[in-house]
C-alpha cells in the first residue's frame, strides 16, 4: 500500500514538468517572434526590444523556462495586459471555479446515484427506460446550450433565479445545474451497471433469503459495494467539470479561471493563458491522483497494481 502511494505521488513530478513544458512552449508555438506578438500590432522597434528584455526573451530558452517555473511558485509572473501579478488575479477566480465544480458535483452525484439505483432496482421498467433516456440525453447536450435553456426557463420566463453574476446562493443554482446535469447522466449510467452487478451477487440473495426487507438490502448491503466504482467516476468527472466550467462561466458571467483564460485568449495575454491552463491541468491531475489513492483504500485488490 505504502509503495503504491509513493509510486503514484512520484508520478506527479514528471507529469508536472511535462505539463508545464507544454504550457511554457505555447508562446513559442505561435509562428513569429514572441516579443513582436506580445507587443501587438503597431509597436515600434524600441517597444519590441524593451519587451524582449522585460520578459527575458533574449535569454536561452531553458533559462526562460526555469524563470517561468520560479515565477509561478514565487507569484512574480505578471499579466502582459494588466501588469498585475497573475497569482493575485487568479486566486479569487480559482476559488470561484472550485466552488462551482463542488456545487456541480453535489448535483451530479445525488441525482446520478438516485437515478442509477432506481433504474437498477426497477430494471427494464419504464423507470429504467426513462432514467437511461435521460442519461443519454445528458451526455449529448452541450453544456453551454443547457445553460442558455435554463436561463430561458428560470430567469426569462419564470423570473425566479438570476441569469448571471455571483451574488449569494441563488446565483450558483443555475450554473451548478448546467454543469452538473450532463455529468449526472454519466454517474447514473455507471451506478446502474454497478448496482445490477452487485444485486446479482450471492450475498445479496442470501440477505433476501434471511428475510431482510428489500429497502434495507438495497441501501445498506448492495449500495455500499456498488458505490466503489461510482466514487472513481465522480472523481474523474472533475476533469469534465473543469472543462465545462470554462463554458458555464462564460454563459453565466461567473468569475472563474475558465473565463479568465478565455478573456486572456482574446486580449492575447499569453502569460495568463500559460499559467491558467497549467493551474487547471494540475488541479485535474491532483484530483485524479487523489481518486486513484481513494480507490485503492476502498478496494484493497488494487493496491498491488
Amino acid at each position: 500500500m505504502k509503495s503504491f502511494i509513493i509510486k503514484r505521488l512520484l508520478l506527479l513530478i514528471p507529469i508536472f514538468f511535462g505539463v508545464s513544458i507544454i504550457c511554457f512552449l505555447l508562446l513559442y508555438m505561435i509562428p513569429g517572434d514572441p516579443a513582436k506578438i506580445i507587443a501587438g500590432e503597431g509597436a515600434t522597434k524600441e517597444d519590441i526590444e524593451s519587451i524582449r528584455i522585460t520578459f527575458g526573451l533574449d535569454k536561452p530558452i531553458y533559462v526562460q523556462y526555469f524563470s517561468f517555473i520560479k515565477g509561478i511558485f514565487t507569484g512574480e509572473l505578471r499579466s502582459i495586459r494588466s501588469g498585475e501579478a497573475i497569482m493575485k488575479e487568479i486566486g479569487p477566480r480559482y476559488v470561484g471555479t472550485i466552488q462551482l465544480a463542488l456545487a456541480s458535483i453535489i448535483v451530479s452525484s445525488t441525482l446520478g446515484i438516485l437515478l442509477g439505483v432506481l433504474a437498477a432496482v426497477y430494471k427494464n421498467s419504464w423507470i429504467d427506460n426513462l432514467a437511461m433516456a435521460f442519461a443519454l440525453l445528458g451526455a449529448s447536450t452541450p453544456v453551454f446550450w443547457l445553460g442558455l435553456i435554463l436561463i430561458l426557463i428560470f430567469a426569462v420566463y419564470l423570473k425566479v433565479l438570476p441569469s448571471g453574476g455571483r451574488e449569494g446562493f441563488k446565483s450558483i443554482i443555475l450554473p451548478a445545474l448546467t454543469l452538473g446535469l450532463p455529468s449526472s447522466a454519466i454517474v447514473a449510467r455507471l451506478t446502474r451497471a454497478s448496482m445490477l452487478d452487485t444485486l446479482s451477487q450471492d450475498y445479496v440473495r442470501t440477505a433476501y433469503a434471511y428475510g431482510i426487507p428489500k429497502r434495507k438490502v438495497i441501501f445498506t448491503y448492495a449500495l455500499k459495494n456498488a458505490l466503489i466504482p461510482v466514487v472513481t467516476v465522480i472523481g474523474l468527472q472533475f476533469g469534465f467539470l473543469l472543462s465545462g466550467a470554462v463554458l458555464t462561466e462564460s454563459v453565466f458571467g461567473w468569475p472563474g479561471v475558465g473565463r479568465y483564460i478565455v478573456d486572456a485568449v482574446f486580449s492575447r495575454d499569453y502569460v495568463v493563458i500559460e499559467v491558467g491552463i497549467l493551474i487547471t491541468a494540475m488541479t485535474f491531475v491532483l484530483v485524479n491522483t487523489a481518486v486513484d489513492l481513494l480507490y485503492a483504500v476502498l478496494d484493497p485488490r488494487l493496491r498491488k497494481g
Partner: protein
Amino acid sequence: MASKEKKEKNLGRYSTFSVVLRRIRKNKGGVIGLFIVLFYIIVSIFGPMLSPYDPNESNFDESLIPPSKQHWFGTDLHGRDVLSRVIVGARTSFTISISAVAIAVFIGILLGSISGYVGGWIDELIMRFLDIFMAFPEILLAIAIVAILGPGKINIVIAIAVFSFPSFARITRATVMSVKNNEYVEAAKAIGESSWSILTRYILPNALSPVIVQATLRMGTAILTISSLGFLGLGVKAPEAEWGTDLALARSYLEFAPWLSIFPGIAIVFVVLGFNFFGDALNDALNPRLKDR
C-alpha cells in the same frame, strides 16, 4: 463443441458487416442512432441544395421574425433564415469532426502499435507522452491550441485531433499487447513474415472493432467541441454557418428571440445523441463476449 462449430459455420455464411448490421437491427437505440447519423451525413452533403434560403443572405426588413410558415425556425438579427443556417451548419461540423477523428485514429493506431508491439522503453516513453496530453481537460487543450494557431477550420481540426488521439493509441496498444503472444502470431514469425506484415495482417485487425466504436463516440465529442469553441468565439469565422457560433450570437437576444437559441442547440443534441446511440449499439454488436450468445 459440435453445436458451436455449426454456429460458427452459420455465421460464416454472412460477412462480418451483415452480422453486425443484423445485431444492430435488433437494438432499438442502435436503429435510431444509425438513422440519425445517416440523416446527418446526407444533410451535410446536400445541405446547400436542401436549404430553403441562402444561409448568408442578410435581409434587414425581415430581422428577428419568430418561427412562421415562411421561416420555420424564424430569422436572426440580419434577417437570415435560421433553418437554412442550421442545415448548412451540419456540413461545417461534419467536415471538421470527420477530419479530426480520422487524423486522431491514424496517429493513435500508429503510436499504439509501436508502443504495444515494440514494448520496452519506447512503450514507456510513448505512454508517458500520452499521460501528459491526458492531463489537460479536453476543451482547455483545444482552447490553448486555437489561441496559438488562431481560429479557423484547420486549426480546430488540429485541436480536436490532438486531444482525441491518446484514446485511440491506448486502445490499439492494449489490443496489440493482448494478441502479440498468441500462437498464430508466433507461427507467422516462425515462417519468416516481416514485422510490418505481422502487425498489419495478423495483429491490427483485432483492434478494428474497438477503434470503430471509439471513433463513433469520438465523433459526438468532436461535434460538441466544435460548437463549444464556436460559442466561446474561437470557432469558424463568421459569416460561415456553425451551430455554436450562431448560439453565441443568439445569447444576446435570449429574451426577445429565444428561437435563435433553441433550434441550433436541438440540432447539436440530436446529432450527438445519434452518434452516442449508434456507438453504444456498435459496441454491443462488436463485443466478442456477446458474440457466442
